Structure formats: C-alpha cells, structure tokens
C-alpha cells in the first residue's frame, strides 16, 4: 500500500497544479503528481487548463496599447522641490 491514499493524492495534486507547471516541485513530488494524473482525468485536465491559463494571461498585457496619461508628471512639475511628504503617507522605501 502506498504512503498516500488516492483521495490524499487527488487533493494534494489539485493544490499543486501551478507548482507543477511552473517546475516548482521536487523530483519526488513531481513523480507523485505524474503518477496520480495518469489515472485521474480531473487532474490531467487540470494540468492542461493551468498550462492554457499561463499561455493566455500574458496575452492580456497591453504594452503596445496602453499609454501613460500625458499629465503623469504634472504633480512633479507643480511640486518642484524634493523631500517633502506632507500628507502622512509612507515615504518611498529605500532600495534593497
């Protein structure tokens, strides 16, 4: 008898589909999901769906179509001087 039940494997696999397609699973974990998906239509479909999602999401990016508004520097031009955050908002973080 294996270490995990089929139900355990199924729930675990469903939770790790993104890790799987991203290549974030170690060798043993990947083999566990592979073995389970061979016999589980749901998880096989889940892998295909997750791969499709990752192919589709970058397609929504709008580098060519979305332009910053013309007035994006208006407040900078109006403020003129540096170093005065006067509205209680957190200051920009220092770079790491």
């Amino acid at each position: 008898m294996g270490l995990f039940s089929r139900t355990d494997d199924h729930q675990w696999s469903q939770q790790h589909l993104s890790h799987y397609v991203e290549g974030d699973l170690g060798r043993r974990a990947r083999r566990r999901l592979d073995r389970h998906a061979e016999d589980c239509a749901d998880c096989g479909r889940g892998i295909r769906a997750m791969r499709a999602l990752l192919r589709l999401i970058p397609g929504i990016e709008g580098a060519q179509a979305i332009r910053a508004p013309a007035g994006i520097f208006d407040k900078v031009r109006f403020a003129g001087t540096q170093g005065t955050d006067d509205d209680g908002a957190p200051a920009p973080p220092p770079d790491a």
Partner: protein
Amino acid sequence: MPQLRGPGILDTETRLVARARAGDTGAFEQLAGAHADRLFAVLLRLLGDRGEAEDVAQEVMLRAWRGIGRFHGRSLFFTWLYRIAINEANRSLEKSSRRPVSVSIDAEVLQVPAGTQDEPSRRAEHAQLRQALGKALAGLPPDHRTAIVLRDVEGLSTQQAAQIAGVGQAAFKSRLHQARLKVRAAIGDQALIDAGR
C-alpha cells in the same frame, strides 16, 4: 518588458539618477518616463479604473520624485518605482474600500492567433474569456492580484516581482500559486483548454 537594458542603458540610468537626486526634474522625467507606460498598465490592472489609475500614477511619480534621495542604485530603478506603485495602489484600494469590478482587458491586445480572429464564434469566445479573466483577476485579494500581474502579465522574474511586492520569494510564490488556482477555478478547466487551443 521594463527591464530591457544593456550596460549603456544602465550608465545612462545612473547618470539620470544622479541628476534627479540633484534636483533636475527633467532628468527625473526622462528616468521615470521610460517606465511610465508599463507602470500605468500595471496600475490599470490592479485598480481596474482608468481615472483612479491616472490619479495614482501621478501620485507615484510625485512620491518617487520626492523620495529619489532614498534610491541608492542597489536595485534597479524600475523595481523601486514599481514598489512605490504597488504601495500606492493598495493605499488607494484601502481608502476606497473597494475591489475593482473587472480588470480591463482590451480586445485589441489579447494576442489571439491571426487565423482565428476572423471567425465570429472564436471572437465571441475570446471576448467571453477576456471578460472572465478580468472578473477573475478583479475578484482576487490585492496581494494575489499583484502576484499575477507582476509575474504572469508583466513577465517579471520571481526575484524582481517578490522585491516589488515587498516579500520573500517563497511567500511570493505561495501567493502566485494560490492566485492561479483561484483564477483557474473561476474560469473553469474546459473553457481554459478550449481557449488555449
């Protein structure tokens, strides 16, 4: 991708940072302007409202200008600028206590294979998918939405995206995986598989 750069570009950036730190607004505009379109796109994805994104974008530039003295070149300028943007977007969402109704996904920028664009039924399917993706992203908690926008939409590395989000890489990946599972559940496996063909 905002990180298109070579040694020459980095030299230029270093010079612009130095001039901006000395109070040169023109240098700052050149420096930050190189990232303005991408930054605005990120804000639009996070906030889902063009007017609010415009206000926040102006605020981000103001904060970056006022805080440029705190930027020492230890990270890339754009990661520092994006971090300010994420903080400001979250502040704006908290102030208005709302979630975006939908994250705008423009028809013309969804990269559908050329041959399928002429087929009315496929176009309708992709329009539905855009709508579903927009709603699914909008329904995520802000930190999960940020993870998907930075990593999957912007295509940043995990290291860069985690730095911008202000968390470690393990925590960032955990958010990202959770977010993807939620989007997958919201859209449905079969719809994703059909659209991904």
